[in-house]
């Protein structure tokens, strides 16, 4: 197997010749290094740095957005819990109001029922009193009418049936009584 001349040169320690054999020229290499550094600096200064800055800014924005989203999520959860609490509290208050209203309505109904009963009793009592009064009035009227009829009938009968002799005797007797009663 054949040894490559370059390796052979390195092994031989002929460094200057070796670089020369690779075509490396020191001035040219140095100038390239300088050019590379200049280019690298320019690129870093005017390309990489703004890009990195933009990337950092966007990362910051993303991080802020994520943080904002987390905050919003936490606030949303708080709001939901508060909402649930408010709804529950409102439900309890509504139930309490319904219970109170039901109790008041029952009281009202009970009171109205008692009033109706007492009013009915009063009406019945008044009706009974009125019936009794009407009955008494009717009896009084009947008694008066009967008395009137009895007296009228008696008057007619006496006027027709009383003889002249009886009438004269009664008148004389009345006259004597009048005189005697005065004495």
């Amino acid at each position: 197997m054949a040894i490559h001349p370059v390796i052979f040169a390195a092994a031989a320690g002929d460094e200057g010749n070796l670089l020369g054999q690779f075509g490396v020229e020191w001035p040219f290499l140095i100038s390239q290094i300088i050019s590379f550094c200049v280019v690298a600096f320019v690129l870093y200064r005017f390309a990489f740095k703004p890009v990195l800055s933009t990337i950092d800014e966007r990362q910051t924005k993303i991080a802020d957005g994520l943080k904002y989203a987390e905050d919003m999520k936490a606030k949303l959860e708080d709001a939901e819990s508060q909402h649930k609490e408010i709804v529950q509290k409102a439900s309890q208050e509504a139930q309490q109001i319904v219970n109170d209203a039901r109790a008041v309505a029952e009281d009202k109904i009970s009171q109205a029922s008692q009033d109706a009963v007492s009013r009915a009793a009063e009406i019945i009592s008044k009706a009974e009193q009125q019936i009794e009064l009407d009955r008494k009035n009717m009896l009084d009227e009947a008694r008066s009418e009967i008395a009137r009829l009895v007296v009228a009938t008696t008057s007619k009968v006496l006027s027709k049936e009383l003889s002249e002799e009886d009438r004269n005797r009664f008148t004389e007797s009345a006259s004597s009584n009048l005189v005697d009663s005065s004495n």
Partner: protein
Amino acid sequence: MTQDKQIKDFAKQLLKMSQDGSDVSAERVDGVLKALDKNPPRHHIALLKAYLKLVQREVAKSTAVVSHAGALSSDATEAIAAELSAKYGRAISTVTREDSSLIAGLRVVVDCDVYDSSVSSALTSLQASLS
């Protein structure tokens, strides 16, 4: 003093002049009326009305109106007049009237007093007691 008061007082004076003792005398009343006719005072008509009312009242005081159903003897009438005269302390004359509505008995009215012994008054009392 009002005009009515004056007329009443004048009528009372005329009534006193018309009385003979405690009784109203027809002759004195006639004399009073003639005097008034000759010398008519003011408010002549009103005075005569007041005088008439007083005379009627005085006559009613001394008159017993006896209403009766059936015959009433003169003796009974005189007895009633005597009894009433004794009771009121003045002479009471009687005026009799036939009243068939009494059915039987009699009713005597002296001024404002009424003595009723008729069948109709008894029936009226009966009706009042039954009513």
